[in-house]
């Protein structure tokens, strides 16, 4: 019932953030801090990997939206990797599929950034 955050060594200027576990009101500050830290350091092209995320709530979505807003101000973008059908459904219902690029694996999400 926790979240793990792992930031990979960058490829080019793209950073991949692997998340695993559950993103809720308790754990989302951790995710927010990790993403915020990257953006503070001037990294504006991010892939956020939700492949191992079993659960996300509105506070988690809020963190992703907040990150996207910030990088867009610098001409960057955030792509997501997501395969879990329940989580995809949440992106559908909320209309967030229209503002995020959502991919089936990290490679596809990286390629789409270039």
């Amino acid at each position, binding site marked *: *019932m926790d979240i793990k955050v792992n930031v990979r060594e960058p490829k080019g200027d793209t950073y991949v953030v692997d998340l695993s576990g*559950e993103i*809720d*009101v*308790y754990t989302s500050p951790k995710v927010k801090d990790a993403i915020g830290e990257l953006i503070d350091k001037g990294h504006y092209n991010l892939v956020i990997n939700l492949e191992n995320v079993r*659960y996300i*709530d*509105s*506070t988690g*979505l*809020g963190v992703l*939206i907040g990150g996207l807003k910030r990088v867009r101000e610098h001409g960057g973008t955030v792509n997501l990797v997501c395969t879990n*059908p*329940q989580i995809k*459904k*949440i992106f559908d*219902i*909320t*209309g*967030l599929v*229209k*503002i995020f690029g959502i991919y089936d694996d990290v490679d596809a999400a990286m390629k789409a950034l270039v």
Partner: protein
Amino acid sequence: MNQPVTPHPHGALGTVELRIPCKAEWVAVARLAVAAVANRLNFSIEDIEDVKLAVAEACTNCIQHSEGSDQIHITCETGPEGLTVRVRDFGRGPRPQKAAPSVSDEPHVGGLGVFLIRSLMDSVDYDVHPENGTNLVMTKKVAH
């Protein structure tokens, strides 16, 4: 000879009450407990996930907006029709200027919590006691 246990045609009927501190670290307990209750009915996995998220959003709102509630009370009632969950806090209720948001503009950035609850559950009723908290009653119907 594969025999899953389904002794009641409509699943197990009864009431389960849960009280957690009105703090972020306890929402996971509410979520898992309510999922375990939902699992006693003939819900699909997707339905159970819907209920989990709706209850979590309700608890998150108690934590973020109730201002001064110590506890969240969650009551689950299983019946032949499905599951009714009440989520109650004892805070000050929603400030008038920021009541439950409209559902018109997409994408829903901000106000996602109530929007998700309304999307995922079959009926949703807010009963606000101005200085004594918010009482949310929501139901999920089980497919027969």
